[in-house]
């Protein structure tokens, strides 16, 4: 595993160094051998050469027997230190001159191991002295082995030096070659490392060596692909990051929206959506707070509950939008009228409340109530019309009228009903107002029970044809025969029924009852049509026409016997739904009439489109038409316009002969009112029909 950390080119370098060292070893041994061979051959050749030269130089002397010259020459030569021995013999082998070392010198100035390795033998050179084929002697020369060894040592060291130089050069060259050769691999390694560390822009330089060129191409292609995919990845990451940021931004926005929505919801939970005043819950809370605060001092807390008079009319006649505007205006006035420490709230519908903490006494509460009423009851200018707003205000005080918020609210409510009943503007709670309030609170359940237990009753008021003076129709009018309170008129419980949803069973009961009565009459030979008032709520109920059809069937009546009276505002509340209901009823054969016509804003042309057959002029125009010219003009115009559109006209509130006469002269189609008969129970209605002056003209005399 350790070996894996040694680079390839270092290993190659080691191999090369090993080869070079082996070569150097061989080289050195060769050098050594060569030194020996050279020394031997030098000794042999040079010894021979010297012997030959000496022989030549001594030839003359030997021929001339000049031995002195021979010896002189040998002596002279021997002094040069180049010889271990110089020997000249004559032709008979007698030594003429013989010089040799007294003590053999061998291997001075050279290392002993070298001298030992060299083991240079003594190789004497011989040469004969002859001339003209005659021998004169021999020369024997032994070169100085000491000098030869020195020379060999010098030569060896020189050669070894050269070999070392060559070795170093080879090592350097090989190192350089490896470095050069492996540079692309190093570069490859470095590049791949850089790529590996994420630097995908790293590239290898182009290489002229074909093998590396291909490798460089492959690596650079790989790097390019990595770079591309990295860029794509980065781009994807950027996109994801941007999306995340956008998402976070959106989440922030949503969070803020949610926060503000929560805030708004919290606000809405505690405030009224229309007026932005605190709602019942918050009021309750504020009352409690005021009570807690007040317990610590000697002041009183006042609670006002205020209800607008005739608000339903405003709503019905001018529409909900106008009603809303009225409510907003009232809320604004209320806020301006009370103190900064007071809390004005809307409890729902047209009911408002004010908590007034820290009042010195009950009188101040009454004063403030007056101030509030005064502010609220200022006329309101709405759509170019001035609307008078009335209000009834109930006052309950802490601690005199209650110790807790619930009690105070209940009692202020009771006081408010008292004020309404007394038309007194405001009413400070008392024991009596407590009873009244409780009655109203139980009215709802009682009305429900009334429908079930038969406390309700239908009264009938005849409508007389102005042309024939005959009774053709009877309007069914609801009465609540309360076991304790006696007879209760519809205007006292119909709004309650409408606001609580009891209007549906109530209307159903009325329609069924009227149809049953009509069936009875027809069975008895009295061909009387019956008219029933229906609420705007009924007209908005898509199931209502189907119910009517079922009732007609179950009662065995005919659609033509039934007339449904609706107010203008009921139609205008949601014309599309109303038109659909009216069309279905009309197609069924049921007659539709507009009740209280003239108090709303319906146009005649619109009524024609509504498939209305009849209009009933509101009693307010009819009552005084004989004495009030403008009323008479209105009635005349209405009759004229209705007739021009093919509508029949019935006048309500006919109480005098003059009115009856006037209507007949104006060409009115029918009339209804106390002049003929007040609404009476069914039995009494039949008796009236058979006994009164109108009776003869009605029974069996109907045109229908």
């Amino acid at each position, binding site marked *: 595993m350790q070996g894996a950390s040694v680079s390839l080119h270092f290993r190659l370098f080691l191999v090369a160094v090993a080869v070079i060292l082996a070569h150097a070893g061989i080289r050195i041994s060769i050098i050594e051998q060569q030194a020996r061979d050279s020394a031997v051959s030098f000794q042999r050749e040079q010894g021979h050469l010297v012997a030959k030269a000496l022989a*030549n130089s001594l*030839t*003359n*002397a030997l*021929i*001339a*027997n*000049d031995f002195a*010259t021979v010896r002189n020459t040998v002596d002279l030569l021997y002094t040069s230190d180049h010889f271990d021995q110089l020997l000249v013999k004559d032709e008979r082998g007698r030594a003429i001159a013989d010089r040799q070392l007294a003590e053999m010198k061998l291997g001075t100035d050279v290392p002993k191991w070298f001298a030992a390795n060299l083991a240079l033998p003594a190789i004497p050179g011989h040469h004969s002295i002859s*001339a*003209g*084929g*005659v021998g*004169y002697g021999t020369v024997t020369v032994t070169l100085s082995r000491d000098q030869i060894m020195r020379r060999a040592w010098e030569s060896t060291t020189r050669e070894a030096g050269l070999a070392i130089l060559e070795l170093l050069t080879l090592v350097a060259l090989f190192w350089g070659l490896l470095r050069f050769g492996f540079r692309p691999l190093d570069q490859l390694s470095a590049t791949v490392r850089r790529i590996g560390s994420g630097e995908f822009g790293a590239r290898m330089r182009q290489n002229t060596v074909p093998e590396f060129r291909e490798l460089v191409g492959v690596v650079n292609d790989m790097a390019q692909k990595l770079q591309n995919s990295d860029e794509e990845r980065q781009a994807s990451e950027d996109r994801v990051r941007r999306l995340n940021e956008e998402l976070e931004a959106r989440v922030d926005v949503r969070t803020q929206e949610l926060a503000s929505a929560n805030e708004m919801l919290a606000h809405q939970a505690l405030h009224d959506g229309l007026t932005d005043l605190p709602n019942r819950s918050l009021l309750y809370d504020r009352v409690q707070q005021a009570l807690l605060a007040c317990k610590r001092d000697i002041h009183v807390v006042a609670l006002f509950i205020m209800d607008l008079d005739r608000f339903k009319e405003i709503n019905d006649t001018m529409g909900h939008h106008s009603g809303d505007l009225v409510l907003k205006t009232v809320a604004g006035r209320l806020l301006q009228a009370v103190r900064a420490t007071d809390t004005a709230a809307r409890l729902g519908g047209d009911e408002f409340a004010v908590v007034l903490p820290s009042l010195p006494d009950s009188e101040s509460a009454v004063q403030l109530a007056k101030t509030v009423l005064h502010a609220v009851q200022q006329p309101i200018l709405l759509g170019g019309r001035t609307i008078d707003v009335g209000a009834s205000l109930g006052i309950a005080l802490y601690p005199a009228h209650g110790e807790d918020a619930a009690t105070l609210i209940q009692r202020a409510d009771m006081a408010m009903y008292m004020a309404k009943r007394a038309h007194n503007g405001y009413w400070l709670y008392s024991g009596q107002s407590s009873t009244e309030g409780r009655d109203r609170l139980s009215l709802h359940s009682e009305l429900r029970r009334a429908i079930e237990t038969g406390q309700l009753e239908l009264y009938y008021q005849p409508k007389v044809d102005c042309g024939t003076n005959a009774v053709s129709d009877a309007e069914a009018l609801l009465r609540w025969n309360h076991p304790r309170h006696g007879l209760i008129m519809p205007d006292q419980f119909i709004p309650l029924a409408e606001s609580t949803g009891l209007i549906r069973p109530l209307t159903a009961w009325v329609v069924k009852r009227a149809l049953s009565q009509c069936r009875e009459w027809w069975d008895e030979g009295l061909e009387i049509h019956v008219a029933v008032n229906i609420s705007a709520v009924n007209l908005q109920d898509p199931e209502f026409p189907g119910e009517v059809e079922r009732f007609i069937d179950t009662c065995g009546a005919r659609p033509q016997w039934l007339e449904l009276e609706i107010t203008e505002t009921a139609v205008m509340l949601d014309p599309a739904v109303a038109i659909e209901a009216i069309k279905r009823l009309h197609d069924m054969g049921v007659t539709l009439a507009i009740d209280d016509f003239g108090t709303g804003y319906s146009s005649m042309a619109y009524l024609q489109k509504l498939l209305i057959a009849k209009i009933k002029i509101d009693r307010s125009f009819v009552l005084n038409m004989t004495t009030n010219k403008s009323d008479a003009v209105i009635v005349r115009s209405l009759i004229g316009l209705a007739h021009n559109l093919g509508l029949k006209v019935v006048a309500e509130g006919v109480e005098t002969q003059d009115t009856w006469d006037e209507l007949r002269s104006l060409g009115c189609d029918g009339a209804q009112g106390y002049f003929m008969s007040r609404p009476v129970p069914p039995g009494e209605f039949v008796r009236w029909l058979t006994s009164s002056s109108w009776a003869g003209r009605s029974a069996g005399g109907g045109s229908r």
Partner: protein
Amino acid sequence: MLIRLKRKMVAGIGLALWLLLATMIFAPAHAANTYSFGVLNQQPPAATAELWNPILRYVREKTGISLRLRMGPTVQDTDRMTAAGVFDFLYSNHNFDPRFGQADYQPIAKWGGHPLVGQIVVLADSPLKTLGDLQGKRVAFPSRDAFIAYRVTMYELKAKGISVIPVFGATQAGTAVMLEMAGADAASLNKLFADQFQARNSIRFRVLYQSEDWPNIPVLAHHRVPAEVTNAVRQTLVQMAEDPEGKALLRKLSIPGFLPAANSDYDSTRRLYQEAL
């Protein structure tokens, strides 16, 4: 039969013994001796040996007479040895010089070819044109003992009253080299040598003086040498040019061979030596 056989055997043995004896009797008596053969120092001893040893070997092979070359390290040494009668045979004419003529040497043959001619030469480009130009100049001679290259030429110079400064080159070759190397203004040389030198060394001499012909250097024999030996040697040398082997050797050595010589042939030489120089 057996007797006949014995007779034959005795006869054979006797014949063999006779043949052996005869061989011993008729074999040259000098064969057992080695005679010294001196040579004048015209060239260094080695060159002399190269020339003469083959001739001496030829003689031995032809005659059985062993001749050993001997010479002194210098011409003076050889001349002294001549005077002392050291050599059995001798190739020299210095014995005609009264100074060295004490020993009794007699000519038995002489160097063949052209007779001795002496020359006084200068280098071809030398400004010296005539013999008279040598007045007071340095003239190289082999030695005072040289005959043709000193005695003859110096005699001529003196006869003409030309006084030169003599310098000595020891041998003919040394003298020529002295001229060549400007050690002398002129050189006195054996014409034969001068011609060979010029041919060998690509050098040109101008001859200022050339002598008349003088008899070539003789081969002398000391009177102690037996006559048959002297005769054998003389005969061998003289006949060398006739013998195929001898002729081949002479051609190889580039020498003309030997001619018969009489004592009288060198009377003029003796006379010249006797002239006081």
